[in-house]
C-alpha cells in the first residue's frame, strides 16, 4: 500500500535512525532509504523474507518481535515502525510497551476492523469478514487480535500513551483523524496510522 508508506515517510525526519519491526520483504525499508536519508534496520520472523532483505543488502535480522526486541537498548531508535503486524502478536500489549521503550517515537498502522464493510459482513452475512486488507478465513488467519481504530485509540489513552497524530487511509484518500471525527473515521477508514510517544 503506497499511501501508507507515503504517510509513514512524512512522519519521519531526515537523518534519523529507524527500526522496521516485521519488515517483510523490506519494501518499506527500501522506500524510506530512497526517499529519506535514514539509517534503517529491520526485524522479520520469516526466514524467506529475511533472505530476500539481505539479498538486497538491507540490515535485517531474523527474529520475533515478542522475544527479540529486548536486545535493543532504550530509546536506541528515533522511530520504530510496526506496519499492519500488531494484530498478529500473542501479546500486543507487551510489544507496544517494548516499541515505546526502544523508539523515541513509534508509528503503528492497523487494519481497521471497524470499517463499514467489515461491520456489514458480520451483520448481514453472519460470517467472519474477508476483505482486501483482511484476506484470511477465520481458521487460517494469522491475525489473533483484531481491533478497530477506536479500540486502539482507547488503548493508548488508557495507558497514558501520547498520540501525536492519527491518519485515516481509505483507498487513495488520506485524512486526519481527530477527536471530533473519530467515530466517523472509524467507520470509513481501511487503515489507521498512529504516531505515538511514551
Amino acid at each position: 500500500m503506497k499511501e501508507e508508506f507515503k504517510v509513514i515517510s512524512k512522519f519521519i525526519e531526515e537523518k534519523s535512525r529507524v527500526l522496521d519491526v516485521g519488515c517483510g520483504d523490506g519494501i518499506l525499508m527500501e522506500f524510506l532509504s530512497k526517499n529519506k536519508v535514514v539509517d534503517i534496520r529491520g526485524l522479520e520472523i520469516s526466514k524467506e523474507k529475511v533472505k530476500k532483505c539481505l539479498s538486497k543488502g538491507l540490515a535485517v535480522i531474523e527474529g520475533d518481535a515478542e522475544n527479540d526486541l529486548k536486545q535493543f537498548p532504550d530509546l536506541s531508535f528515533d522511530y520504530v515502525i510496526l506496519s499492519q503486524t500488531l494484530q498478529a502478536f500473542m501479546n500486543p500489549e507487551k510489544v507496544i510497551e517494548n516499541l515505546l521503550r526502544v523508539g523515541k517515537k513509534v508509528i503503528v498502522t492497523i487494519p481497521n476492523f471497524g470499517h463499514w464493510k467489515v461491520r456489514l459482513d458480520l451483520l448481514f452475512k453472519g460470517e467472519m469478514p474477508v476483505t482486501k486488507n483482511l484476506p484470511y478465513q477465520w481458521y487460517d488467519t494469522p491475525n489473533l487480535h483484531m481491533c478497530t481504530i477506536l479500540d486502539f485509540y482507547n488503548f493508548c489513552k488508557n495507558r497514558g500513551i501520547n498520540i501525536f497524530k492519527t491518519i485515516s487511509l481509505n483507498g487513495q484518500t488520506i485524512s486526519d483523524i481527530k477527536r471530533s471525527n473519530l467515530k466517523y473515521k472509524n467507520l470509513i477508514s481501511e487503515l489507521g496510522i498512529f504516531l505515538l510517544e511514551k
Partner: protein
Amino acid sequence: MSNLNQLNSVLIKKTLKLDCGKEISNFPLAYETYGNLNENKDNAILIFHALTGDQYASGINPVTNKEGWWNYAVGPGKPFDTDKFFIICANVIGGCMGSYGPGSIDPLTNKPLGTNFPVITINDMVNAQYNLLDHFKIEKLFAVAGGSMGGMQVLQFVSNFPNKAKVALPIACTASHSAQNIAFNELGRQAIMSDSNWKEGLYNEKSTNPDKGLAVARMAAHITYLSKQGLQEKFGRNLQERSDLKFGFDADFQIESYLRYQGSVFVDRFDANSYLYITRAMDYFDLTKQFGGNLSKAFKNTKTKFFIISFTSDWLYPTSENKDIVIALNAIGADVGFVEIKTDKGHDSFLLDVPDFLSTIKNYLNTTYSNINERRI
C-alpha cells in the same frame, strides 16, 4: 607433499608480540589470491580459513591435488566472485601449509620447532594476517569473511582494526569458545598426544608420525561437524560391502568405514602438532572476556556492516551463540544483518553446497558492493 617453500609467501619482518608474551619476527605467511585487485583497490576480500583449512580456498590445491576447501563459495560467478573481487586467503600461523608453525625449522637447531613453537591465539593469527594489507598496499578491505574458526578471526579482525573492512561476514561461529567445544578439542589433542609416535612433539626428528592419534582426532571432530539427522539419512545402519554383521571389530557399518576413511586421508595432509596448536588457539578464544565481559565493547566505534549467518542443524556453533554476537552489535547500534539458514548438514553447512546460503551471500555481497560504490559511504 610438494615443497612448501615454492608456495606464495610473504616474509613478515615486523616484530609481532604474541599473547603468550613471546615475540616473533622474520616469519613466513603463506597465502593465495584469486581474481584481480582493481585500480581503486576497493574490491579486496580477506577470507579466513577454519581449523584444518589452508590458503587454497578455490581451484585445485597444488599440495593435495584436491579441490580448495571453499570451492562452492569462491570462484568465477560464485558468491565470492573472483571475476569481481580480489580474494586473499592466508594459511594461519601455527598451520602446516607454508606459514610459520610447529613444522618450521628452528634456525638455532636446524630442526623443526615442534612443541617449542609458541602457543598462539586467534588474535595472533589475525595480527599476522593484517600485514597482508601492507603487502598488497590495500588501504581498506571490502570484506572479511570466514566460517567456524574463520568467523572467530573475522570478529577479532574487526575488533582489532575497526576501520579496515567495510563488510564482515562471520559464519557459524562464536565470540567465546564453549566448554563443549573445548572438550571436543581436548579429546582430539589427547588422541594425538597419547599416540606413542607423537614423541612429545618431536616426531619429525624421529622420523615417525602420530598418524593413528591424528586420525582418531579427525574422526571424533568429523562427527561434530555433521548433524544426527544428516548422518542418519546418509548412512543409517547400512552395512559396508557385506550382507550381514561379522561379529568382529572391522568396519561393519558404512558410517564406521566413512569415518576411518576421513581419518586416513586427513593424516596425509595435516600436521599433528599444528592440530594441537590451532585447537588450542580456538579454545583460548573469548572475545567477550577480552573486553571485560561486555562483547559490545569489542565493536565500539565500528562502521563495519555485519552479516551473521548460522545453520539450524549446527550444534557445535549453535544459532544461540551466533545470536549473542547479533545482540552485542545491536546493543551499540551497529549495522547488522542476521539469518539462520535451514539445513540438515550440520556445522559443515558453510563448506557445502547449501543453495540458500550461497545465493544469499552472493546477492548480499553484490548489492552491498554496488551500494557502497554508488553512495561512496
